[in-house]
């Protein structure tokens, strides 16, 4: 086994184990920290695949943004040190069964299917290539989705402000 293979399996184990712990732990703050490690493991897999830009975006947006936001909301909404209530055993069993059946179905399809790869020359996922295609307006360009996402982000920004201000406005009226 080469070093690259060992690193891959370590990253896979980190991702899956901390992902599983994140959904089964009963301490909500620990769930957020396990989620953080799972996301870091996925960023490591992106680095392993040599998609450095996506790995950097993953770390900046998910690890630096969303998880911090989630931790803030835990601090704002949760009594410290309180365990999450225990779920009914029947619900847990049903959920595990449903998840396992879905997993078995997808894995069965995956094992039976063979993917054909193209023999064309690969494009390097460098920042220059990504940027040129992202803002391109030719046939392969992604300028229109880029603009739509920027409008969506603006709408989300305004929506967050409106939702957060609501009770304050009602108090003033």
């Amino acid at each position: 086994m080469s070093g690259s293979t060992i690193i891959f399996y370590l990253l896979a184990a980190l991702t899956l184990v901390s992902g599983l712990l994140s959904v089964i732990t009963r301490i909500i703050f620990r769930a957020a920290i396990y989620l953080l490690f799972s996301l870091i493991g996925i960023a490591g897999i992106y680095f392993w695949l040599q998609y450095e830009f996506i790995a950097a975006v993953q770390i900046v947006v998910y690890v630096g943004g969303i998880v911090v936001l989630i931790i803030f909301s835990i601090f704002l909404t949760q009594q410290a040190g309180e365990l999450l209530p225990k779920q009914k055993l029947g619900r847990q069993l049903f959920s595990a069964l449903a998840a396992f059946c879905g997993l078995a179905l997808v894995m069965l399809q995956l094992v039976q299917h063979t993917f054909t790869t193209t023999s064309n020359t690969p494009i390097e996922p460098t920042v220059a290539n990504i940027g040129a295609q992202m803002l391109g307006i030719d046939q392969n360009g992604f300028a229109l989705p880029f603009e739509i996402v920027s409008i969506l982000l603006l709408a989300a920004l305004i929506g967050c402000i409106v939702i957060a201000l609501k009770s304050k406005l009602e108090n003033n009226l």
Partner: protein
Amino acid sequence: MQPGLYHILFISTVLFFIGVFGFFTRRNLVTMLMSIELILNSVNLNFITFNKYVWPNKLDGLFFTIFVIAIAAAEAAVAIAIIINLYRTHQSIDVENAEEMKF
């Protein structure tokens, strides 16, 4: 054996159903949001893997991943604003306690 397409697809499938399991069992809105993040990340991993191993001559999977990350960030921000607003009115973020809109 050198890890390849199937290994990463296995990881993303397992991660997706871990997220589904969490979404089914959890009754706290913040932890349900965490499960959704896990699901979205497994989808991103899928896109990147297919881009790397099946269509290396294009960057389309990478762009889908970038857009999914942007939309996930917006979704998390709006969801947390709603959760905090719900906590103000109900003093709880348990889905069992927020059922006025249930028909």
